[in-house]
């Protein structure tokens, strides 16, 4: 075989494996609060626990609420932006961030809103668009 071809193959294999390795590291899976313990950017799926206090505090400038994950753990979630505009309507939430102690610090939030009347599972996530507190 020609040396050029060998170099080419090595380059392609090297590039692809590095890319896939890096890609594999940069994605994660949706988890619950307990699994999120050691993760830096955990995606936790759950529902809003509306039995407890929630709201935007003008003092700390944070939106806080309690979320119940799919395993049933309830944690306080702190989100440093104002309340997303369709927060109350969402039937599922995804918070992205990290947990410290008993508090989950979310950097981003996704809301899955029920789409009415669609017989199929026509639900749709919406990125936390800025709403008002």
């Amino acid at each position, binding site marked *: 075989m020609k040396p050029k071809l060998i170099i080419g193959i090595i380059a392609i294999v090297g590039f692809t494996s590095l890319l896939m390795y890096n890609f594999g590291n940069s994605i994660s899976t949706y988890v619950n609060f307990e699994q999120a313990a050691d993760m830096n950017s955990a995606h936790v799926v759950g529902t809003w626990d509306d039995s407890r206090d929630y709201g935007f505090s003008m003092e700390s*400038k944070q939106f806080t609420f309690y979320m119940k994950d799919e395993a049933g753990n309830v944690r306080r979630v702190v989100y440093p932006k104002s309340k997303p505009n369709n927060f109350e309507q969402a039937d599922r939430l995804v918070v992205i961030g990290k947990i410290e102690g008993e508090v989950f610090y979310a950097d981003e939030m996704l809301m899955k809103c029920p789409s009415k*009347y669609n017989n199929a599972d026509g639900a749709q996530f919406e990125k936390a668009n800025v709403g008002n507190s």
Partner: protein
Amino acid sequence: MIKFYGEFFINAAFLCAILATIGYFLYAQNDKDRYFKISNWLFGLQGLFLLAASGLLLHIILTHQFNFYYVYNYTSDDLQLKYLISAFWGGQEGSFMLWVLFSTLIGFGLMRWTRKAYRGPVLFFLTLTQIFLLSMVSGISFGDFTLGASPFRSLAEAMPNAPFLQSNPDFVPQNGKGLNDLLKSPWMMIHPPILFVGFSMMTVPYCFAMAALWKRKYNEWVNPALPWTLGANVALLTAIFLGGYWAYVTLSFGGYWAWDPVENASFVPWLLGTAGIHTMIIQRKSSTSQKASIIFAILAYVAIVYETFLTRSGILSDASVHSFVDLGLYSQLVVFMLAVTGIGLGLFFYRYKELPKQKNDSRFLSREFMTFAGAMMLFLIGLVIILGTSSPIIGRLFTENPTPPEVSFYNEWTMPMAMVAAILTVLGQYLFWKKQDGESLAEDLTLPVALTCIITLASIIIGDVRNIYYMVYLLTAWFALVGNAVIMIRLIRQNPMLIGGALSHIGFAVLLLGILASSAYNEHLLDRTTQQYNEAIRSGNVTDEQGFQKTQTVNFLELKLNEPKVVNDKYRVTYEGYTLKNQERPGQQQYRIKFEPADGEGSQFVLNPQVYPMLSSSSAQNIEWSVDPDVRTGMLSDIYLYVSGSSYVQQKNEQAKERARQVRQQTEPAAAGMLDSTKVQKIELAQGETASVGSFDITLKSYSQETEDAPQDSTIIAVRANVEITQRGSDSSTSVYPLFSIYQKNGKNWSYAPPTGIPGHNGTVQFSSVNPSTGKVELTIRGVDKEVKEQWVLLVAEEKPFISVVWLGTFLLMGGFSISIFRHWGRERKKS
């Protein structure tokens, strides 16, 4: 009737497309002009049917026929004409129709201009793609299977499980759900159509590449295909730019690019198309890279279909802001994708052995090698982005239920490759116009390299750049800018039509500089106290009310009415109130935020961010607010801000909560008489005077004797006052006209002065007496808080430097590509 005709027209068009495809196939095989003519007629007929169907769709949208699901789902009575028209492509079905419409127009162009050897197969492949697209809106049922989703389907067909339709299948809603508030933007008028122009033009290189493989004419096809590919590129780039600009100025995501799958969906085909343009150009010049040109032309269109699949099959609904919901087109989209890819790559590998081979390898320092390497870089960038966008599918190799990749994945991979590409642009351009060896090239590059070093050093010092990676990045971007500028200046002297490539490369370099500067120097505008607070958070000294250590910094700017704050030592910012006038959207507030330079030098300016209730998802008991940022565009930096909360919004929310509570408890609103007595306040005003009560300013404009219909027969005197009430901070006021009268009953004088409600607020105004000696009027205000409720606004404000540079880079790219279109198109026309 309309339903019948609409579905008929679409399916007639569908049938014509099938017949035309067969016709073009026969023509391509037999080369008999008769087949070509018949197919052209069929193709034209298909266009007519489609036009008729589109007209009907527009008609039912404009006439609000809510018995159609499409109309119900995307429009409402109150929608302005421009948004009614954009509702045509607001949903999947209509956007497929728009796509085919543009594709048909392009078909006419191809019919007219394509030379004989290629036109049969080219039109065959074009109509083939149209069959697939039309099948998405056909709506024909075969037993349980429905082909596509017709825009003319009725409510009952679309939502068989909806409760209101089960009780009455013929029910027609009074009003539709309306267009999503975020789509009610002038950009919605223009962004999607241009995108579909790009999509349909990108079909052309695919068709030509396939025609080349079919007819075994591997060289000449690039000449006619090149202008089309360039055109597709300009259209896609324009659409990407419009999308980015739209996201930036009217959505609150805070930037122009977020690696969202839908953004990527238009970017990857652009990258692959651009890679194709590069290989086509060298193929034209020196008969190399035939394989690469064909493969890129195929892949660019495959990328379009693949990204269409990703965004429309519902597969990304967990990951994207604005992907569509699955309409049941999943399997059809898969078939479309497999067909386009399978036919494309299948034919390519079938012919692979006879494709022209390169005799000897290109030298390293040759335009062929450099341009090809540049194309490969673009291709690899596209590959990385496809990989990231495909995370819901490919990510399953690594984990179940994968999340989208972090944004850093995209940045860390694409930026280094873009840097390599930046260097290649200069080397490629220097070798493109002149055959060079290492020595002469080095000599030619001395000046640009020297200039680059000086400018890079200067920008590192001025910009206080400390990151090595940024320094290298700057070096490559400046090198691309300077190198290509030198080439361009030389070319302008020869023939200005030749500068397309150099100009595009300059645009690319400017874009790189803009991307770095705008993302690395983005700053929140904060006052001194908040900045110190954030410092404390960063050093871990702050705990929140429950004793948890705070880690997230505060990025809000809170302003009280007319109390200026100095932010970032640069601006003095004042909240000057809001207006409810000139509402584009019902319930919209427009805030006045004044910026003055902190040191007093320079001009001041006012930003007007808006807040409005999302009508489609708000109710009287729960208002969902959305925001419209305002941006001040500057040469060097933009000021971007939106209102995250305000006292007005808070008050409205509390009122809504109160209403919700009342609904829950089924109680009457608190009667006026039950109002807390502490909230009763009396003021005395002379005509023209103003007094403050709570957060209201109350002005007695005038009072006059009531002559018409006196309230009581025995009235002695009746006076009506004209009182203007303004909530502080707002420039809109309401007027109330309370009455004061004295009448006689049983020989005694009685006064009658009913309290008048303040519109839009709780509380009443009563004209309680007139002081005869001073002529002053006494007003009794009830139900208004005595303590002044402070008017405030909570802002997220950012200074975004060099966004204009990003736009400039984009415009230069568009300009460069456009010049190339003219050049290649002109040459093609001369030949024929």
